[in-house]
């Protein structure tokens, strides 16, 4: 089976500061991950802040070039995509979803314009097709063009914006969605509906999703596979249920232990005991 996304021993080193006070940060180190084509799945990349998950997402999206290793999307080295034409072509198949819905749209542009532009540029729609495509994508996320038409981002709620961002990603019928903490800034009541949405994207639209999160609960709930990162390295990976039910690496165990469960509610905290 051919690979949809093949992350092959990728590493990223940031060098900052001047010649005298150099700081070298190894954000991602020797990381490999492979998603098969024709078998849509949700892969959760779990880790605390600073563990390199966002750097990894940026490398997959070709926003950053790995210092070593290579990322291939359907056999093409992602870092070699340079021309505007090639970028647009890549974007048809790989779409990002960002953490902060309020930053995902230009505040001076109407949200529907984004959907129309995506339909024209990435899905080659013309005329009435453009509206139809935008409306269909919005319906897939529980919105409609009628609700959004002519609205600026500041006139919509965070949940509406995040769903609109997902709709924007769906217009070009991508093969892969890279979602970087897509629910961490959405309130809890909407979190589940977005997470469920990802699941239906996988099952009905056959989109693979790289789901980057620090939240074990949603990762456990929707993902097929997980990869746990600590300080740039993959410390554990495998089928989601197995890894999360029976973590092997000490860091994975610590992560699992720090999840609050409903049974813990009302119990005295550690700080209160000491």
């Amino acid at each position, binding site marked *: 089976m051919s690979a949809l996304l093949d992350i092959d021993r990728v590493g990223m080193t940031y060098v900052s500061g001047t010649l005298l006070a150099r700081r070298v940060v190894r954000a991602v180190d020797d990381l490999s991950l492979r998603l098969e084509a024709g078998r849509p799945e949700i892969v959760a990349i779990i880790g605390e802040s600073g563990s390199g998950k966002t750097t990894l997402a940026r490398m997959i999206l070709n926003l950053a070039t790995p210092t070593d290793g290579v990322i291939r999307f359907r056999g093409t080295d992602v870092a070699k995509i340079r021309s505007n*034409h090639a970028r647009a072509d890549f*974007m048809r198949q790989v779409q990002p979803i*960002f953490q*902060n819905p309020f930053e995902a749209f*230009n505040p001076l542009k109407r949200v529907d314009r984004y959907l129309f532009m995506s339909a024209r540029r990435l899905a080659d729609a013309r005329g009435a097709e453009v509206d139809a495509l935008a409306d269909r994508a919005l319906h897939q996320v529980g919105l409609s063009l009628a609700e959004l038409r002519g609205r600026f981002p500041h006139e919509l709620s965070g949940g509406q914006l995040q769903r609109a961002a997902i709709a924007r990603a769906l217009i070009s019928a991508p093969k892969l969605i890279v979602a970087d903490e897509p629910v961490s800034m959405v309130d809890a009541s909407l979190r589940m509906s977005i997470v469920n949405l990802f699941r239906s994207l996988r099952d009905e639209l056959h989109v693979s999703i790289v789901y980057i999160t620090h939240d074990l609960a949603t990762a456990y709930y929707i993902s097929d596979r997980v990869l746990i990162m600590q300080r740039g390295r993959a410390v554990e990976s495998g089928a989601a249920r197995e890894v999360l039910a029976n973590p092997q690496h000490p860091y994975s165990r610590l992560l699992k232990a720090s999840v609050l469960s409903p049974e813990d509610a009302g119990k005295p905290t550690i700080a209160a005991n000491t």
Partner: protein
Amino acid sequence: MQAYAIYALKRLAQFVLVVFIGINLAYLISHATPIDPVEQTVSAATSFGNASPEAILMMRASLRELYGLEGGAVSQYAAFWRRVLVGDFGPSLSAFPTPVSTLIGRALPWTVGLLSVSTCLAFALGNLLGGLAGYFRESRILKLAGIAAMAVHPIPYYIVAFVLLIVFGYLWPVLPISGGYRINTPWGWNAEFVLSVVTHAILPVASLVLVGVGGWFMGMRSLVSNIVSEDYVVYAELAGVSRGRILGAYVMRNALAPQVTGLAMSLGSIFNGAIITEQVFGYPGIGTLLIQAVHAGDYSLVIGIASVSIVAVSVAVLIIDLLYPLLDPRVKVA
């Protein structure tokens, strides 16, 4: 559209109120000055010889009548507003009998020309360079421009002005250092006169731009470096939108709104700058006229200049405020 009309009306009412309070303050303050123009004229006239006390009294009485200082405070104030509303500030006390409005009309084009050119230049240049510097953070030339802007910005204005005078008027005398045009050049729309006006304006404009550009530069650069990391810019980059378009339509366009607010705010102090500029470069504008008027205790002229400045600045701010909702849809117009 109706919401905008309400907004514009509110803003207009605010403008009228500001102008009313400002002109009242100018009247109050100038009438509280201890310098009495009548006494100044009397002392100037009597310093040459021995005038008898009766002659001095007669002189004083006729001067008061001439200057329109008869009557109580209330009737003077009422007469003042009656005249202001028709744009007549009475005759100048120091350049009697020339009307104040003639003096101001003569000086105003110089100041407005100087300030509008230098403000627009500083705003455009500072924002453009700042935007580029914030977007192309690796560029050495732009880094250098940033250091230069930051170095010049905190230097007091008059030092910059004098350095320009010394360099371009004395060490390398290529530009005129004083006046608004070459003396003895006939006025009119001929090449010679226009050229002399332009060359005389270079140094004062350059001094104002040099000092002004740094603030816009630094403001824009920090705004832009925040905006470039926002996801919608990242998304545009991903989609293969050209860098020029991202910088213009996404990054700088979004940073422009707060900068325009800054412009409206900085306009308030613009005439203060003009006073120093015109003094240093001997420019025949409102600032020079104001200094002369204050020294001579010519409060008709002081009130006239203050009122015109208040109206001019308020109008400029009003225009910016009325345009602002078109610039940023997030501004609530209702």
